[in-house]
């Protein structure tokens, strides 16, 4: 008896079970497939978040900007898929496949697919939640023009750490200052929020190349300072700052340098 006839006999013996099994699989498939097809049909892609329009209508713009043409309106109870953002604009797809941009301010009245209202207002300045901060400032240090690039991280509403790089250009030399700061905001809930800083760093002096070279100098510096932050939006801060650097020189006296600067930073 060869192997194929064994299989045949085996199948005949169990044919009833087999038929029942096939029927069950078909039934299950018939139940699942239409549901899946319905799920897929709406969207070109399943990235992003699906929301339900709660306001009477939401207009779709062709590009992310307030002046661009509006080409479509999504109606109340229609579903939208949000999948991309640029600044305060969201790229959306309607269920009939139209793709356009919507400003965040138009997305105030949204529901999720289970009918719960969504919190999607434009955050006000007081909802500045992003912990990272990057900014630039320009100012004056002992008569020299300075600029500063800095990055920071906020640990608590009151305490942040910052790393700063400052370069000062006077007529005869350049000064570079790298420092690490601890920053304290006693009233983070105020829109114009004062702050105090304590920091330490290294200051290097370079004399201009063409003139007779003096020895390049390098001193450690301790810095106390303070200033005012003003929250323009929840992502942008204007900032005014005063620093007093104490240079720990090898000479008999430590040298004090005052610095004033103003600038802005972005939270992200």
């Amino acid at each position, binding site marked *: 008896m060869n192997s194929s006839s064994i299989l045949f006999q085996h199948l005949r013996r169990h044919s009833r079970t087999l038929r029942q099994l096939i029927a069950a699989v078909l039934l299950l498939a018939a139940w699942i497939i239409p549901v899946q097809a319905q799920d897929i049909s709406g969207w070109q892609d399943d990235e*992003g978040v699906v929301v339900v329009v709660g306001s009477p209508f939401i207009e779709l713009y062709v590009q992310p900007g307030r002046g661009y043409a509006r080409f479509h309106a999504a109606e109340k109870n229609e579903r939208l898929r949000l999948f991309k953002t640029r*600044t305060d604009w969201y790229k959306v797809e309607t269920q009939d496949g139209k793709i356009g941009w919507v400003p965040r301010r138009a997305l105030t009245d949204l529901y999720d697919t289970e009918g719960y209202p969504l919190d999607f207002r434009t955050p006000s300045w007081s909802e500045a939640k992003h912990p990272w901060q990057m900014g*630039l400032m320009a100012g004056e240090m002992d008569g020299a023009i300075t600029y500063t690039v800095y990055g920071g991280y906020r640990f608590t509403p009151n*305490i942040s750490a910052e790393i700063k790089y400052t370069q000062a250009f006077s007529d005869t030399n350049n000064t570079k200052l790298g420092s690490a700061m601890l920053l304290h905001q006693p009233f983070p809930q105020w829109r114009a929020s004062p702050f105090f800083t304590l920091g330490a760093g290294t200051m290097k002096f370079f004399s201009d190349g*063409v003139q007779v070279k003096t020895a390049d100098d390098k001193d450690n510096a301790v810095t106390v300072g303070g200033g005012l932050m003003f929250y323009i939006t929840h992502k942008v801060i204007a900032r005014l700052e005063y620093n007093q650097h104490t240079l720990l020189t090898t000479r008999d006296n430590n040298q*004090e340098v005052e610095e004033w600067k103003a600038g802005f930073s972005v939270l992200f």
Partner: protein
Amino acid sequence: MESWIQRAFLILSLALCSAASLAQQDRTVLDDVISPDLERRQIDEDKLDSENIEVGFYAGVISVEDFGSNDLYGARLGLAITEDFFIEANLATATLGTTSFEDLSGGVRLLNDDEREMIYYNLGLGINLFPGEIYLGRWAFNNNLYVIGGAGNTEFADTEYFTYYFGAGWRLFLTDWLTLRTDFRNHVMEHELFGEPKKIQNIEGHMGLTLFF
């Protein structure tokens, strides 16, 4: 002594402020407990693809006053803050040519090869102007002009110079995330290479591609 008192005072005020803020944090915890029970859900915005960071390379020509027009290669890193404003950092390098004096005088060299390597880096704020769509056949492309200005550092002749720049450019979006950038900028700095302080204007033109991600 004076500065010691100043510091002690600062530390004391820091301590006071943090104590005050701790007390306030307690209050907000209580606020959360008795907040209204209407549930407003949050959207998980991490699921959305945010495209605010712009990265790219460019090539162009910079005319450095007295040192001729020279090829320039640079990189940029930007951040779109709002639909109107962006910030951008640039880093670029060029090799300076010879001055007319060096050419005419025969063998005189004012700078050696190392000193002719120019590097600049800067940070600036850009303002988008005149956004619109332009049409190529049946395709529409987003584009805008912008003005940009900032400050930074230029290094050549073994010295660093404070430099500010201002300029304008054009950004053409080929797709949502790929753009073609054209920029014209004037870099202004002051040097004393020829004895007297001299303010120089250095015009740069460049083109490049950027990616938004």
